């Protein structure tokens, strides 16, 4: 038996959300007393893969096929299914990121293995296999029992902090016998914004709302984000008015984020927005309206003019970030 973890990469680096999945899977493997086997695809340096041992992987199966630098979901589903067969995988772990959301449900239907998407706790195995996840977009949690022999869990990014140790994993070349028919989805173009922190993986998020009055005022948000090494985000009205791109929209109908620190500037805190951010460990709210509902969900609050407060905060945090 084993625990299989899909460790996806981006441009040759294992994603942070995937490292969290490896660590989560390794903890389950330890509970069960079985090996934790990571599966990686595409061109990745051997050292990057053996370093997965620091997060508890005992072995890495590597399909070094350049066609998989963009993980085609159908092909990867086949690879992970074959790894499960080869290693007698009992639990299969993904990050609940873009690749995981695509591959895990396909694998679940293929193996008839129950799937819990977006786990925020380790499985409780005292009575069966019960996993805690967010429901109602973060307004509540559900404890979900997987009732099949094989089990699939995807791990909510930024939920488990990484705690690397000193291990090193053995890396084994793995051939899954992929043919052209396995690549039904052709990637034509990849556009990445280099130098920016991906929102869903960010440990700190600085978010702006209508209180900023217009897209031309986003400089203060970006300056603070830059000083903190943070990602930028926005509320729904801001994305809907086209002030900021849709992929920055955080909330019930946008992205759910769980950073260590969420700084909301000029956002009133409608229930839909709170749903997307209330998994954040610390919330700071800056709003000129003392009655803004967001203050009730915050850890720290400042009632004041964002255009005065935010630049001062940027200067103040630079002291602690050493830049």
């Amino acid at each position, binding site marked *: 038996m084993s625990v299989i973890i899909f460790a996806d990469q*981006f441009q040759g680096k294992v994603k942070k*959300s995937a490292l969290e999945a490896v660590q989560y899977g390794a903890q389950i493997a330890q509970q069960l007393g079985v090996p934790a086997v990571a599966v990686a695809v595409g061109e990745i340096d051997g050292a990057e893969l053996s370093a997965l041992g620091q997060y508890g992987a005992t072995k890495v199966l590597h399909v070094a096929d350049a066609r998989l630098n*963009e993980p085609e*979901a159908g092909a990867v589903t086949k690879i992970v299914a074959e790894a499960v067969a080869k290693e007698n995988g009992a639990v299969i772990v993904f990050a609940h990121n*873009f*690749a995981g*959301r*695509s591959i*895990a*449900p*396909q*694998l679940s*239907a*293929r193996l*008839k*293995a*129950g*799937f819990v*998407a*977006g786990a925020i706790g380790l499985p409780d195995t005292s009575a069966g296999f019960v996993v805690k996840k967010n*429901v*109602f*977009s973060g*307004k*509540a*949690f559900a*404890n*979900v029992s*997987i*009732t099949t022999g094989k089990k699939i869990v995807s791990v909510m990014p930024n939920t488990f902090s990484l705690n690397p140790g000193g291990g090193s994993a053995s890396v084994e070349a793995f051939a899954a016998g992929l043919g052209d028919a396995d690549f*039904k989805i*052709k*990637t*034509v*173009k*990849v*556009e*990445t*914004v280099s130098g920016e922190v*991906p929102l869903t993986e960010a440990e*700190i998020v600085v978010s702006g709302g209508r209180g900023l009055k217009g897209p031309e005022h986003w400089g203060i948000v970006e300056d603070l984000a830059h000083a*903190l090494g943070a990602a930028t985000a926005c509320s729904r009205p801001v*994305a809907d008015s086209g002030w900021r791109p*849709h992929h920055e929209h955080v909330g019930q*109908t*946008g992205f759910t984020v769980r950073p*260590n*620190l969420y700084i909301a500037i000029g956002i009133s805190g409608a229930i*839909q927005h709170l749903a997307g951010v*209330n998994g954040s460990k*610390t919330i700071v709210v800056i709003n000129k309206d003392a009655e803004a509902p967001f203050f009730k969900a915050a*850890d*720290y*609050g400042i009632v004041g003019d964002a255009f005065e407060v935010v630049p*001062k*905060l940027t200067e*103040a*945090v630079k002291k*602690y*970030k050493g830049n």
Partner: protein
Amino acid sequence: MKILVCISKTPDTTAKIAFTDNNTKFSEAGVQFIINPYDEWYALVRALELKEAQGATVHLITVGGADTEAVIRKALALGGDEAFRVNSDSQDSFFIASQIAEIAKQEQYDIIFTGKETIDYNGSSVGGMVAELLGLPFVSIASKLDVNGGTATLKREIEGGEEVVEVSLPLVLSAQKGMAEARIPNMRGIMAARTKPLKVVEPAAAETLTSIVSFELPPAKAGVKMIPADQVEELARLLHEEAKVI
């Protein structure tokens, strides 16, 4: 072109969430139900745009009890041509996907839309499972879809960027923000929806792979610590020393 849009009934985004029966059941008291926003605003509207631009038949499907008929009628009022309701209250994604796949096998769709996820159980699973059950490619979290002959071009999000992919029809996709703009049904649509076909079918035999044991509400926040606007440095200090997040 033949399109299927999967529709789920969810509580309104402003709904207050509470549970009954010893925290094992969602309390529907006072809750208003809507079409899951991802299914309506993005999936259904994009399907209707394709119908208007290129000509298509748009079918709708929901898996739910008789109480889901109000939302499926609304989806018909927006412009769906006909609808299926599979009569089951199951919450298990695989069971639901199996029902959709069963209908899709008979109807042979070119495009099957789901929303990115439902805003109640946040499973983001049904689309991928339907694709697997039908042996079709699945493009998840797509923010743009164009169809040219037998080829679909989609934009989908990835960590830190976007990618453009091409895939031959038929396919399954999950739609998210960006794909289309929300619409409001007009009176003519609402009237027409009353007489559009809504077929109720009993569920096919399928397995259930998961079950919800219980629900919990998040612990209440301890309370906000307010910092005067002229002491911003104090906030930075607290974030560093007390919250230890910077």
